[in-house]
């Protein structure tokens, strides 16, 4: 137990003394008793830090209901906060019964009557339907300063949005009206300084109204300074970095607070949980920690509705530097209106670091069929997640795991925010960021093997996303090795990442034992059933790629059963598994089964992610391909078009996924005999691939499909250029006898022959056909097409 009764009474005496006399008192009373001295020192330290603890209003004046203040009679208390306490009141002279709110401020603020008179003109200019009017100010019989305000009936904006069950667009609508009111005040040079939900009430008819506008102005007017540190009300959760530091405050501080509010309205939580009691901790969090994206924080149900543009708008308002935020509420509002109209937002033109972060975050759990994949950095490595779930069973472990997850996040976000925006291309910058992080790792996290391994697994995922498989392998292997002495489950989680890299490097033999061992480890514990499903997903892909379809189906079926049992019916994991199984069924020559699976996956993604999410678009792409295999060209065309439209809206005009989809669409149009459409679509595919650095699989694919449609349309000269580009890239990426490379050679030969170089073209077609026969056999689709091509274009 802390402190005995005697300690406490000595402490009382100590508190009664002026500061200057305390040392002598301590020396006298504690002579020869070091323990007592330590106790008293500890209590003094606690006293210094405990201001506001348990009772924030201890420094506020007492006030009682049923008392008269000026012409008003207090009815009852409405609320209290750090700055004052508020009472409902009505005029006691019964001239009119209009109700008002009276806010009593701290005693040391003095009489506000003179200041109110001085500022009357400015306060009158605050007249706006969204702003509660300041009616009067003064001090009561006991000298307590107060302000009289229009009484507003309503609930805080956050609670209103919840209770009215507003969707994202409606929330933005309410928020825009708040912005209009703040803009009006800013135009009168009045800054609020303490915007937060409790100060923004929404009336039952949906009209938001801001309270306390003008109070800060009232308090500052005497000092003629921008800052009123100490006097200024401040709510740490909504305070800007400059506010927390005590630096000058301007309209940008209100914009920051509004950014926090918008974050909260969208994600249901504030960007920072200020789970600390010391001002220094708060300052560090607010000033130095980059906020997560709202969509990364939101509950699953909401997350799908917050897309990247909206994330960017919020993050721009939350910029650490006032100059990095929106210059005005009007600009902030304009960007949100652009968002509502489906136009690109200004906030997207952000720093390289943020772009890099966005790029790396583009996570798929394993829509493994194609596509570049990245792991969500901030969501943390698989390790941290796996352990966090297990931690639910043991609260003691939980805080250690959370701590680790936070350190991983802090390290990675720190690394990304330290990026040099002056560097060139996006890919280069991300890669160099990852390299720098990899180098810093041992210095920063060297002591804790599991944290370092989490970071390395995440780095490996990020390198994978960039197609940088050598460093991906290096990091994944290092993470795995680091965990040699860790728990089997932690090591198995790292094995999953390593195995995924191996699969993508085309080393399935190295991946297989890792996956089987990991699966066996997870199998032993019901808590890790979802991790086992993740292993099954990768095993399914591995076997599927190797043509062992029965094996693949078995793994997918197990994973699907587990996920159906453990997760809600609409989980995206289930969607991913159904989609991957569909790809396998397609490869296995069962497009009917495949189409049903893709359709089921599509329904889930539409529900959970929304119609225009990249994941939804990806499933549409798979569905379109299966329909094309079934010769359902009309159905395929519709699915391709929808996928392309969604990708353009969410991924931008140049993205590998869009290029791939357009190229597949081109192929389908060729097969349907729509050669002119195919040429047009192929040109778009090449344009979408323009930002890729060759050699790149999607760039080569786009050039190949465009070239083939040009050839079919009779534009042989142009076809040669495209097919040459495709063949060159593939020669640099693929082994000599790879069927895709041979197919590319055959196509180039056909174009050359058609354009007049008959002998050269013939020879190339013949050589490719010979190799295809030798490697794939006579019956393979590629072999048959190459033979037909030679017949058609090679005729003497």
């Amino acid at each position, binding site marked *: 137990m*802390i*402190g005995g*009764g005697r300690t*406490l009474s000595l402490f*009382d005496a100590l*508190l009664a003394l002026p500061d200057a006399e305390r040392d002598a008192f301590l020396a006298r009373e504690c002579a020869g008793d070091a323990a007592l001295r330590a106790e008293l020192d*500890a*209590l*003094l*330290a*606690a*006293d210094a*830090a*405990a201001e*506001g*603890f*348990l*009772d*924030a*209003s*201890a420094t506020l004046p*007492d006030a*009682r209901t049923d008392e008269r203040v000026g012409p008003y009679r207090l009815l*009852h*208390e*409405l*609320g*209290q*906060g*750090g700055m004052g306490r*508020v009472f*409902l009141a009505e005029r006691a002279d019964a001239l009119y019964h209009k109700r008002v*709110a009276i806010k009593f401020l701290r005693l040391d603020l003095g009489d506000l009557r003179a200041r109110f008179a001085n500022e009357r003109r400015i306060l009158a200019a605050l007249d706006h339907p969204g702003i509660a009017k300041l009616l009067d100010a003064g001090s009561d019989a006991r000298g307590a300063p107060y302000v009289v305000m229009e009484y*507003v009936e*309503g*609930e*805080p904006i*956050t*609670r209103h*949005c*919840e*209770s009215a069950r507003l969707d994202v667009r409606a929330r933005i609508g309410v928020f825009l009206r708040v912005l209009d009111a703040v803009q009006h005040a800013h135009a009168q040079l009045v800054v609020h300084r303490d915007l937060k*939900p*409790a100060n923004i*009430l929404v009336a039952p008819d949906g009209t938001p109204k801001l*309270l306390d506008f003008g109070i800060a102005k009232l308090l500052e007017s005497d000092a003629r300074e921008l800052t009123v540190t100490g006097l200024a009300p401040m*709510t*740490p959760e909504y305070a800007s970095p400059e506010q927390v530091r005590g630096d000058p405050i301007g309209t940008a501080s209100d914009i920051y607070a509004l950014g926090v509010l918008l974050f909260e309205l969208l994600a*249901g*939580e504030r960007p920072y*949980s*200020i*789970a*600390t*009691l010391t001002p220094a*901790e*708060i300052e560090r969090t607010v000033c130095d920690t980059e906020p997560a994206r709202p969509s990364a924080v939101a509950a699953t149900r909401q997350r799908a509705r917050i897309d990247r543009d909206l994330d960017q708008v919020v993050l721009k308002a939350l910029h650490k530097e006032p100059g990095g935020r929106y210059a005005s509420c009007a600009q902030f509002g304009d960007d949100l209106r652009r968002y509502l109209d489906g136009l690109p937002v200004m906030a997207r033109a952000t720093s390289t670091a943020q772009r890099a972060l966005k790029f790396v975050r583009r996570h798929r759990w394993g829509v493994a069929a194609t596509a570049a994949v990245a792991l969500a950095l901030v969501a943390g490595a698989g390790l941290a997640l796996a352990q966090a779930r297990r931690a639910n069973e043991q*609260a003691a472990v*939980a*805080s250690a795991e959370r701590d680790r997850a936070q350190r991983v996040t802090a390290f990675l976000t720190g690394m990304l925010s330290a990026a040099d925006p002056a560097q060139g291309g996006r890919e280069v910058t991300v890669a160099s960021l990852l390299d720098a992080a990899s180098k810093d790792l041992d210095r920063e996290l060297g002591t804790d093997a599991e944290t370092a391994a989490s970071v390395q697994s995440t780095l490996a995922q990020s390198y994978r996303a960039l197609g940088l498989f050598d460093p991906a392998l290096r990091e994944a292997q290092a993470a795995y090795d680091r965990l040699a002495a860790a728990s089997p489950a932690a090591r198995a989680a790292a094995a999953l990442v390593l195995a995924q890299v191996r699969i993508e490097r085309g080393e399935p033999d190295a991946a297989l034992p890792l996956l089987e061992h990991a699966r066996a480890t997870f199998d032993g514990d019901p808590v890790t059933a979802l991790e086992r499903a993740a292993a099954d997903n990768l095993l399914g892909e591995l076997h599927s790629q190797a043509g062992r379809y029965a094996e693949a189906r078995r793994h997918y079926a197990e994973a699907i059963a587990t996920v159906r049992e453990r997760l809600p019916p609409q989980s995206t994991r289930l969607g991913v598994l159904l989609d991957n199984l569909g790809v396998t069924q397609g490869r296995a020559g069962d497009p009917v089964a495949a189409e049903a699976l893709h359709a089921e996956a599509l329904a889930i993604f539409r529900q959970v992610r929304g119609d225009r999410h990249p994941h939804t678009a990806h499933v549409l792409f798979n569905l379109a391909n299966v329909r094309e295999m079934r010769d359902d060209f009309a159905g395929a065309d519709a699915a391709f078009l929808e996928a392309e439209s969604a990708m353009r809206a969410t991924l931008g005009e140049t993205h590998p996924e869009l290029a791939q989809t357009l190229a597949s669409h081109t192929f389908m149009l060729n097969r349907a005999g729509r050669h002119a459409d195919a040429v047009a679509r192929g040109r778009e595919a090449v344009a979408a691939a323009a930002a890729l650095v060759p050699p790149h699989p999607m760039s080569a694919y786009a050039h190949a499909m465009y070239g083939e449609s040009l050839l079919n349309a009779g534009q042989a000269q142009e076809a040669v250029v495209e097919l040459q580009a495709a063949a060159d890239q593939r020669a640099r990426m693929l082994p000599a006898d790879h069927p895709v490379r041979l197919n590319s050679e055959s196509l180039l030969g056909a174009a050359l022959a058609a354009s007049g170089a008959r002998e050269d073209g013939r020879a190339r077609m013949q050589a490719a056909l010979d190799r295809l026969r030798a490697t794939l056999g006579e019956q393979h689709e590629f072999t048959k097409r190459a033979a037909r091509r030679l017949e058609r274009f090679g005729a003497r």
Partner: protein
Amino acid sequence: MPHVGALQARDEARNVGGGGWTGRGRGVVVESASVTDWLQRWRAGDRDALDRLLPLVYTELRQVADRAMRHERGAVTLQPTALVHEAYLKLIDASRVDWRDRAHFLATAARAMRQVLVEHARARGALKRDGGERITLSSVDPPDPRHTVDLLALDQAMAQLEALDARKARVVELRVFGGLEFSEIGALLELSRATLDRDFRSARAWLYRALVLDGSGPGP
């Protein structure tokens, strides 16, 4: 010991007690003469009146607390003073009582409030053992983590403080669970304002050390 701030509900929509100016005024003043009567008889010296009063206050507080937590899942942050005031508005006919009645009511309610909340916290803890059902208290609205404290930890620490200095513990109880003004506490306990301020400050430092600096401090 678990963290103080980390598990509190951060979603303001879940918090109780009214973030705006209307939150606490919702309760209509219900004519409930018996409580007012018992209160006045007690103040007039009728000791039995307290026995009649307490169950009524206790029942009302429990209803208020039940209502406040009914729709809450996960961690909850409560403002006991708001709950007590809500009960006060419902039970007391404000036109018939003076500040002494109010102070006596709140003093009675402070102890009952503490009991009701501790019962709730224990019941929740027994239901869910993963620590996610924590109840924390806040003295301000919206809750500020710096002023938020775990209820059961506070109750335990106050029991320890009671053993050392019962008066200090009572001051904290009246202020934190009853929401009495310092002037009311001073009149009730017959303490000078200087003594009262020192008692509160001393108790606050002791509790801060017990709850924050030792063991249950906030995470980094």
